């Protein structure tokens, strides 16, 4: 039976833990109470999903590691999240655009993983898919609202689209591990995900009266552990307790 590699599962888990960590920063600081709740809810879903994946990765590793060991005791170069999710929240619009780019990718990825040849990944995707579909709908609706809202909101959100576009290429650029997972029917063909993603993103940005940026250089490296400077600070908070009080029960 097909089984994903530990590294592949960590990629999936790290993406949503780091994004959840970022979204958690909004808690108590949202533009209006209802949206504070909505964003916290997404953070909650994502971190909840990441726990299932870390538990699975820990089982694959099979050396007594726990979900928290994996989530909180690695250094920057051993995290495999894409660069998009570690980008700072910025204003509400930037958070929404980051979320929309990621959610749309996450939606098509999960849609594939529901039928992954790795049974565990398939089960986890089944449990997560409804949530992920809701996230994608929520962030798309907000992109439209902000893009087609006021002149100020339009400008702000367009500039976030421009800023974050450079981090979207990485999502669809397969490396050896992606190809290996695809061959085994564990992971998707990223070209297919890219085509779906582009179609959806074009459609939503058009409704939102926003422009797709011109040809942009695409950053990469996150999923191989080559990060920018932000991740270290995220980890400093994420790992603080596990580092200051090692090997204790909470």
């Amino acid at each position, binding site marked *: 039976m097909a089984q994903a590699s530990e590294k592949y599962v960590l990629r999936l888990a790290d993406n949503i*833990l780091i994004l959840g*960590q970022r979204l*958690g*920063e909004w*808690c*108590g*600081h*949202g*533009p*209006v*109470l*209802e*949206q*504070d*709740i909505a964003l*916290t*809810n997404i*953070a*909650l879903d994502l*971190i*909840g999903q*990441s*726990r299932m994946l*870390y538990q699975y990765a820990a089982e694959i590793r099979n050396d007594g590691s726990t*979900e*928290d060991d994996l*989530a*909180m005791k690695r250094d920057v170069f051993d995290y495999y999240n894409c660069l998009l999710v570690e980008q700072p929240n910025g*204003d*509400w*619009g930037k958070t929404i655009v980051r979320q929309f780019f990621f959610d749309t990718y996450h939606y098509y990825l999960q849609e594939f993983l529901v039928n992954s040849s790795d049974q565990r990944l398939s089960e986890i995707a089944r449990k997560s898919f409804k949530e992920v579909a809701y996230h994608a709908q929520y962030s798309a609706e907000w992109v*439209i*609202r*902000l893009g*087609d*809202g*006021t002149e*100020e*909101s339009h400008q*702000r959100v367009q500039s976030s689209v421009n800023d974050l576009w450079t981090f979207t290429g990485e999502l669809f650029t397969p490396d050896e591990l992606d190809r290996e997972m695809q061959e085994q029917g564990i992971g998707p063909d990223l070209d297919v995900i890219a085509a779906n993603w582009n179609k959806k993103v074009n459609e939503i940005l058009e409704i939102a009266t926003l422009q797709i940026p011109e040809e942009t250089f695409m950053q990469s490296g996150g999923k191989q552990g080559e990060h920018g400077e932000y991740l270290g600070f*995220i980890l400093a*908070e*994420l790992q*603080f*307790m*596990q580092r200051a*009080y090692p090997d*204790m*029960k*909470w």
Partner: protein
Amino acid sequence: MSKEEILNMEARFERYVAEENKVEPKDWMPEKYRKTLIRQISQHAHSEVVGMLPEANWISRAPSLRRKVALLAKVQDEAGHGLYLYSAAETLGADRQQLVEDLLSGKAKYSSIFNYPTPTWADMGAIGWLVDGAAIANQVMLCRTSYGPYARAMVKICKEESFHQRQGYEIMMALAAGTPAQKKMAQDALNRWWWPSLMMFGPTDDHSPNSAQSMKWRIKRKSNDELRQEFIDKTVPQAEFIGLSIPDPDLKWNAERGHYDFGEINWDEFYNVIAGNGKCNRERLAARNKAHDEGKWVREAANAYAEKQRVRQQKQTSAA
């Protein structure tokens, strides 16, 4: 209405609530009853919203994923409580926007307890156990308050708060049963939160001028001192059970009264924090203002978009 008619109405109203009837939004009520409730419910709503901050402070640093998820969910519940309570205040004719403005300008109050800082993880345990515990004592009473929408909001809120309290106690329990470093952290948090939690019930009965009227209207059903005593009697054994000590040398069981006797509360500190001199008063209000100011363009965009959609739909309907 003549003055005499109003007095008659007020007398009838008092009989009505004394007979344990619920007051509903469309019922006649004395203007002062309405104002008292709006003040109390909106203060409660503000407390939920400001109360998110000291705990949200630890979301990024929670020691395990399980605790992180639980804390996120808890803070989210508080935001939800804020929403129900603003809605309850709106049934009395208050405007949520105005209530929020009053909080941001410093005109409206919120529970002073949230002006204390949360420097360690154990504060997440202490807040759940003690602060939510004290809040529940008050809120269980409010489930039977005379104003229907408030009482019903409280029933829902109480269920979630009890869950939070257990969760907080469980955090403390894990710390108290842990390493010496963890136990020290737990004791330190108890030392800092014990007295402020007792202050949450408000001044002693002989210094609580509005209480009598609220009791008469069945808004309040127990006095500050009664509620405080209930809380102490319930909490002391919980501390003993996990091996933490209450920071009050005068605390001892009084068999004759059937209650714990306790030491003098430092009311100077209480009034000082209310006056704005707590460690975090400025930060809390600044954080709320910052969120509100930075969210302005988002709220405007949402309104503008909703308006555009309305016009588009209208055009579609008239075209058809």
